[in-house]
């Protein structure tokens, strides 16, 4: 059971995994693009991204482009480290099966 305990609960949902995966290989990604990449609704993305922000895994930038508000995301150093650790334990679990 040891390894399973190490799995980060914050990354349990598919949506959060998706957000983190996208941000791991990109710089800033805006709300609309993230939404269409993950194929989810506005509300779904908003709630999961704010949860990740609260944990300090992602950084959120709000700005205005003309008159439209634009929200962008970027992974933090903490988020990167935690996600890599999560991937490693997933991999270990997968191999031990």
């Amino acid at each position, binding site marked *: 059971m040891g390894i399973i305990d190490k799995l980060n609960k914050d990354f349990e949902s598919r949506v959060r995994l998706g957000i983190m995966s996208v941000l791991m290989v990109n710089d800033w990604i805006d709300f609309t693009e993230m939404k269409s990449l993950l194929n989810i609704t506005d509300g779904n993305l908003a709630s999961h991204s704010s949860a990740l922000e609260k944990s300090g895994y992602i950084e959120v930038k709000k700005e205005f482009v003309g008159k439209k508000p634009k929200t962008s995301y970027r992974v933090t150093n903490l988020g990167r480290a935690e996600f890599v650790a999560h991937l490693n334990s997933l991999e270990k*679990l997968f191999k031990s099966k």
Partner: protein
Amino acid sequence: MSQKIQEDLSHIRSMMERSSRFISLSGLSGIFAGLFALAGSIYAYQLFKNNGIEYFDGKQKLYSYDLIIELVIIACGILVLALGSFIFFTLRKSKKFDLPVWTNTTKKMLLNLAIPLLVGGVFCMALLYHQLFALIAPVTLLFYGLALINAGKYTFSDIRYLGACEIILGCISLFYLGFGLVFWAIGFGILHILYGIIVFKKYK
């Protein structure tokens, strides 16, 4: 549990792929671009014949102004058709796999493709202007190859091999001036078709 982990891992992998590479590139567009280029080359060859020029006799040739204009128009026509098929098949593939098209990655890929292509375009116009026609075929192949390698970071890496082949071909053609049409037919025709078939089979 094991299945959930496997699904998680493949989800992570696909999200990383989808967001960092332009993967709506279809092999079919390569095949069509190649076919258009071959058809154009054959048409240009016929055009030479109709103007009383035997392309393969190895003699220095003087082209009339009208003929050059016509050749430039053919080349531009092929470019438009090739770009058209590229856009068509890209949109088709992205619809089929439900992939977003106009993303940051697409923009980056196009920008990286465009920089060497635009420089090459200006270079060719200068060659036309100075009437150094023999150098146009090598220069187009070289800059196109460089553009593909540059864009390869943001799409399937196979495109870099195509770019490398175009560059090698361009270098060879520098030493066989006067056979531009042949090198064009190989570089833009045959290489595109081969590349298209390989990519189409690989990423079906």
